[in-house]
């Protein structure tokens, strides 16, 4: 029964995440940007734009200019999350490649950094009056969700080990459509439930910023408006009235 529930939950969550996120990306990609609005100074070549986006995603360049506290907490959280996610790949592949084995100790350390970053971001929502003003319940819930995932995961690593071999068998089974029993460990079930909830809300929440950053016209446009004429399809239709 428990196994069936969690198997269904993860199939549903995966479909919602993939379809929902793909749909959101499709919306972003197919909506035209009729005017050139890069925030200047902007790169004058596509390579330059790729580099600008890379700096934005890898180093949070704009946030660094804006506020060092938010940058420190936000950057540490995101980078630690990336390491933690990579570490978790070991539960989805058999045998575990050597690279993943190497990441293992860093992934364990990164969990502390991830939770610390989240705590900093959450603390600002209470301590800084301006940020308290703009925070909605969903902003707190999102942090609670991520914090819950981080802490429950750390519990299993540092406090009460779960039967990780069985967990891996469960997920490898899911991927092969051969359902294997899931351990009835409460901490594990909390961890997995929160992860599934995160996957389901992802495409419908502010977490789509992960795609938004690549589609933001102020960041992804090339500064070449004098050299290349930029015309959206709907704007081109207006030109029918032009004599010359």
């Amino acid at each position, binding site marked *: 029964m428990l196994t069936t529930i969690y198997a269904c939950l993860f199939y549903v969550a995966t479909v919602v995440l993939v379809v929902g996120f793909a749909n959101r990306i499709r919306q972003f990609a197919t909506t035209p*940007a009729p005017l*050139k609005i890069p925030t200047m*100074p902007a790169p004058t070549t596509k390579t330059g734009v790729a580099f600008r986006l890379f700096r934005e995603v890898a180093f949070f360049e704009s946030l660094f200019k804006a506020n060092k506290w938010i940058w420190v907490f936000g950057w540490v959280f995101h980078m630690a999350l990336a390491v933690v996610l990579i570490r978790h790949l070991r539960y989805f592949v058999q045998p575990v490649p050597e690279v993943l084995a190497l990441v293992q100790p860093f992934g364990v350390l990164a969990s502390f950094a991830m939770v610390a970053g989240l705590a900093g971001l959450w603390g600002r929502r209470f301590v800084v009056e301006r940020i308290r003003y703009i925070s*909605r319940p969903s902003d707190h819930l999102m942090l609670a969700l991520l914090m819950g995932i981080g802490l429950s995961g750390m519990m299993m690593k540092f406090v009460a080990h779960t039967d990780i071999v069985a967990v891996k068998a469960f997920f490898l089974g899911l991927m092969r459509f051969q359902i294997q029993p899931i351990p009835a460990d409460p901490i594990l079930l909390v961890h997995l439930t929160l992860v599934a909830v995160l996957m389901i809300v992802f495409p419908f929440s502010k977490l*789509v910023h992960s795609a938004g950053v690549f589609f933001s016209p102020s960041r992804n446009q090339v500064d070449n408006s004098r050299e290349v004429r930029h015309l959206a399809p*709907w*704007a081109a239709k207006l030109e029918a009235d032009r004599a010359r």
Partner: protein
Amino acid sequence: MYIKNDPSEATQIDPLEMPALCPGAMEGSNPWVASPDHQASCGFPGELVDNWQEKAIEKMGELLTKYRSLKVYLDSCVKCGACTDKCHYFLGTGDPKNMPVARQDLLRKVYRRHFTLAGKWFPKLVGAEDLTKEVLDDWYSYFHQCSQCRRCSVFCPYGIDTAEISMAGREILDHIGKGQKYCNEIIGKVHTIGNNLGLNKNALRSTLEGLEEDIEDDIGVPVKLPLDKKGADILLVTPSADFFAEPHVDGLIGYAKVFHAAGANWTISSYASEAANFGMFIGSYENMREISLRIRQAALDLGVKRIVFGECGHAWRVAYSFLNTLAGPFDFLDPRYPVPQHICEYTWDLIQEGKLNFDKSKNDHIKLTFHDSCNVARATRMGDKPGGQFEIPRAILRTVCNYYYDMPEDTIKEATFCCGGGGGLLTDELMDLRKKGSSPRMKALQTVNQEHGVTHMAAICAICKTQFAKVMPNFGFERDSILSVHQLVSNAIILEAPQDDE
């Protein structure tokens, strides 16, 4: 100058000083509503339509399919707070709805209610709200407390530009019949007469002739300001404020002297006698396009080879970034020059070629700084390298002035502050907002006044010049402490008097 030059005091002034939050402080700030005639001249309904809620949501839906910026920006904000202390109107008023994210949220909460699953199912949770009369009033008030200067977009990790949000907000307001008088009246004048001031061809001709006489009386050189000259090489498109406002007109005289020194065959057009394009302020692609097409038409009719724009911030944004889109392609112009060019690019090229001669000492009574106009700084470029919009005006100023000092680094270039009157807010009924919004820039000016004894500030935007001339006395500066960049060029340029008249 009222402020004493005392370096010890300089440390006490902080242009970025954080105000205490004062909710509702500016909720009473509203520009006058456009009359039915003004609305009609831009193609909008005369007064608030009966089913305005329905129409507003419908328009929002349409804009979401036409503008990726709007869609991505409404979806992507994570409320990190990076922008909260970046808006000059927030710094000047303390009203939390002037924090960029809070201004965006005025639109975002209605977007979430009507266009997102989360907002339809759990409105309280995600801060989604219906479009009520109160929300509409907030839109009108606070979308007219954004000068679309893009400072917030520099600091947002996703580049969310509140200008795009306030433009969309104003576009929706216009389409339900609640437009702003200042912008829409002016756009109507451009559509019918050709410039923001409603200056007709004859008035313009006599103004330019008057200026020619003034220049000749002043320096003894017959510098011309030609109007509607067919077959001229260069069409100058400049903000109409340049024709008579101070210090704008001294800038226009400067352009004329530069053209004269270069031996250029140039002209102004009475049909396209306006560089500014208020269609941008109200987010109306159609109005912006119609105004831009006048410039194309004038260039074709006069048979010019190049188009040069005068000193004007938002105008240069529409010119540099949008003109090719709205009114291009300009394949009938000389391909050796970018279309269009900024007068600063033109002048700087001549300086580099050694074609202009200056007596810098003519500006020795001035200790100068430069205000990067927001839209020039963050929405355009000059020259062929990113950042040329910062370097070229400064290079010109250093060529014509001996005493030049920059304001603090976090208040200039890409981090520059708006003058407080941009984006269609340069109207008397918003004077309180304008004064408060100018305070970060004015404090930055006070710091260089105290550290270096700076007496004057130059700008390349008609709105900046008008705004500063108005608000400077509130901060201890004479109203003529604001100068045009080409006014300083005009002061220092050496023109040869005619060798042999007749």
